[in-house]
């Protein structure tokens, strides 16, 4: 069966994306504490999903609308959820990696977590 060169480029993009997803999962297993795990997990899963859907645009050109929408959606929500997650993990005092060099957040965080929204 014959495939055009464009489709093969798309398929290789999907393959590279899946490799990045795999590396992110490997980082999730190997990294020593929550914050490093969030770092590898977010970056790798964002680029992996982005490349997968971008490759599918090459293979299925008539689906471009929904695929582009999914890409925009992933680029917008994934960093936000990892930021909220990191903040919550700091709030419940998850132990940090023992080789952590410095933590300039500690003093200010005490104040920030006590702040409340007043009903206006």
């Amino acid at each position, binding site marked *: 069966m014959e495939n055009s060169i464009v489709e093969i480029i798309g398929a290789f993009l999907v393959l590279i994306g899946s490799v990045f997803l795999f590396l992110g999962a490997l980082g999730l297993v190997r990294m020593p504490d929550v914050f490093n795990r969030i770092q590898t997990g977010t970056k790798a899963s964002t680029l992996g999903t982005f490349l997968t859907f971008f490759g599918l645009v090459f293979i299925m050109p008539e689906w471009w609308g929904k695929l582009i929408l999914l890409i925009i959606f992933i680029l*917008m*929500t994934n960093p*936000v959820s990892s*930021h*909220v997650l990191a903040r919550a993990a700091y709030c419940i005092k998850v132990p940090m990696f023992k080789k952590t060099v410095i933590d300039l957040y500690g003093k200010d965080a005490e104040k920030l977590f006590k*702040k*409340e*929204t*007043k*009903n206006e």
Partner: protein
Amino acid sequence: MVKNAFIFLILIGVAMILVNLFAGFTGNVDLGQIANHYVANGPAEVGSANIVTAVVVTYRGFDTLGEVTILFLSAAIVGFFLKIENTDNTERNLKYTSEILNTASQVLVPIMILFGVYVFINGHLSPGGGFQGGAIIASGLVLMFIAQPKKEIGHKLINIIESISGVGFVLMGLAGVLFAGGFLDNNVIGLGKFGTLFSAGAIPIIYIFVGLKVGSELTGIALSLKENQNEA
């Protein structure tokens, strides 16, 4: 050690399920007698590209009305008991949310509501329908409650939308009795061209009412829980 072995056992089990799903999934292809009737006659009689929608809204439309009523009852009961529980009018002070989440939710909430409406308007063409679309709308509003605790939505507005859509659903059913074959018959306004947005007779209109009703009921439950929760 025991825990690790246990985790690996679970992982192997999940892997085998995935391989089975991927290798050869053949569903139950033989249809029963009733299912055969629906598949054979559904598209011609109802004009809906999605057989499940045809069954839920037209052939079994009365059951759907009952389900929506049950959901309404549960929402009313949750509101009622939480009102009794919280008699001292203390206002809760909610924790400070991060500014990033606030900004992201301002952009996302209108988009989520638009997507919910898309799901229930296209109910006769694609998977989805009134209940699913209503649930998406309600989750968009839950995101707003979490990320912007200061913003208020009145119970009154939700109740008005809910009552109007409930009455509209029943009126569409009665119109079926008057102008067509029976309660909730969808031949009221003609079937239209098969497979387009304005087709399948009254199904899109009924689904708009069902979606708005489900969405406002679930939002009402979330709102009561948000307002009346005591600090443990």
